[in-house]
């Protein structure tokens, strides 16, 4: 099993108390967590990545226990080897595109320099067609370029899986369609497991091998109805 996830966490206070109780397992390479906004999808993804801690539960990724409250296992985010693409991409505003992409290659206390040249930075810059903007700062980029930069920055660290938080939400329709295809193609080419969360049914249709429906912090159904192959058949 690729993912075995079982997590509980109470969120919020008093009136807005919210109980997250998520359990699912999946072998899919392209898993989609689908649900309305406020359902707890981002919290779920962050807990899978180690950016947030469940109060109880167990998370196993490809036979590695990354979290187990009973055995007090809780690998830090940086030890899980997962890539994460944030909803607003979270590009470092003080670094250029190239410095952003090369960020994970240096683990010391200093950022890659402006002039930093590296073959894998060059490779990913090329894959995502960012050569022309590699000297620019994130605020100078278009939405699509930001997302590509965020993807390149995550992939350069050679993650074992990529988690994406509403990657297309901030885009207009035509761009969304194109980037969906790009992502799908990328996933197939790298055969890198991905988990994507969305509230957009179109994303599910285009991307999901398996979809997990989440509502009000609970898994309401677990199915694989939208695998693109079936859909087009």
């Amino acid at each position: 099993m690729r993912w075995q996830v079982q997590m509980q966490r109470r969120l919020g206070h008093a009136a807005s108390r919210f109980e997250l109780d998520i359990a699912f397992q999946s072998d899919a390479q392209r898993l989609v967590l689908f649900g309305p906004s406020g359902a707890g999808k981002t919290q779920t993804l962050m807990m899978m990545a180690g950016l947030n801690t469940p109060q109880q539960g167990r998370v196993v990724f490809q036979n590695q226990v990354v979290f187990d409250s009973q055995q007090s296992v809780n690998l830090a985010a940086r030890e899980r080897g997962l890539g994460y693409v944030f909803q607003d991409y979270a590009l470092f505003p003080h670094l250029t595109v190239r410095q952003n992409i090369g960020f994970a290659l240096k683990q010391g206390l200093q950022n890659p320099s402006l002039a930093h040249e590296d073959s894998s930075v060059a490779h990913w810059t090329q894959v995502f067609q960012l050569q022309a903007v590699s000297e620019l700062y994130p605020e100078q980029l278009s939405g699509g370029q930001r997302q590509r930069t965020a993807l390149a920055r995550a992939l350069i660290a050679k993650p074992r899986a990529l988690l994406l938080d509403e990657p297309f939400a901030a885009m207009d329709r035509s761009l969304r369609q194109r980037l969906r295809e790009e992502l799908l193609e990328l996933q197939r080419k790298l055969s890198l497991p991905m988990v994507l969360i969305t509230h957009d049914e179109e994303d599910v249709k285009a991307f999901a091998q398996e979809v997990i429906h989440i509502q009000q912090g609970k898994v309401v159904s677990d199915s694989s109805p939208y695998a693109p192959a079936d859909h087009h058949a």
Partner: protein
Amino acid sequence: METAWVALALTLKVAGWATAINLVLGVAVGFALSRGRFMGRGVIDALLTLPMVLPPTVLGYYLLVMLGRHGAVGQWLKEQFGIQLIFTWQGAVIAASIVAFPLVFKAARAAFENVEPTLEQAARVLGLSELAVFFRVTLPLAWRGIMSGTLLAFARATGEFGATLMVAGSIAGQTQTLSIAVYEAVQAGQDQTAHFLVLVTSVSCLAILLSAGYLAPGRVAGQNQRGWP
């Protein structure tokens, strides 16, 4: 004129040390208060801000009581290391540091609170240690705010009078800073010296304020960010 240059050099030395001390302590305390979730945060913040609102003479009095010959800290320093701080330039550094401290730690705290938490999380997920996250993401993004507070603290330390006079006195060439020299010159009826001292002080303070305004956050936000280290 000789007095003025000696006083200026001493003032810059005292203010420089006070600023360096405040930069380290202010960043550390500002960071702790912006991230820590512990009891009594409000009380600690208020106590540390007190030097900004208390009359400098009151601060000077506290310092005298603590660091003086009969003060707990003063006695201990004397017995352990043979150090006496009262009436020395190091005493003036301590007085200036305490008076200017709130300006640095307030600015640092606000700057740290303005750093988007997801940027730090992005760095963690990319494999960085907490220390690396601080030096590569948090500090560079908070740097402008910290620097503008630090420059204000430098200006404040340069102009320090009350607490410094009480703790370090007014020994020409040793503890007589610009602002104290101005007072002494006026008291002694040396108008020319006073004029010159006042001019030197005003020009240095104006220069500092202009730099602080240039670094203030917001002014450059949205423009290019090449000023970031």
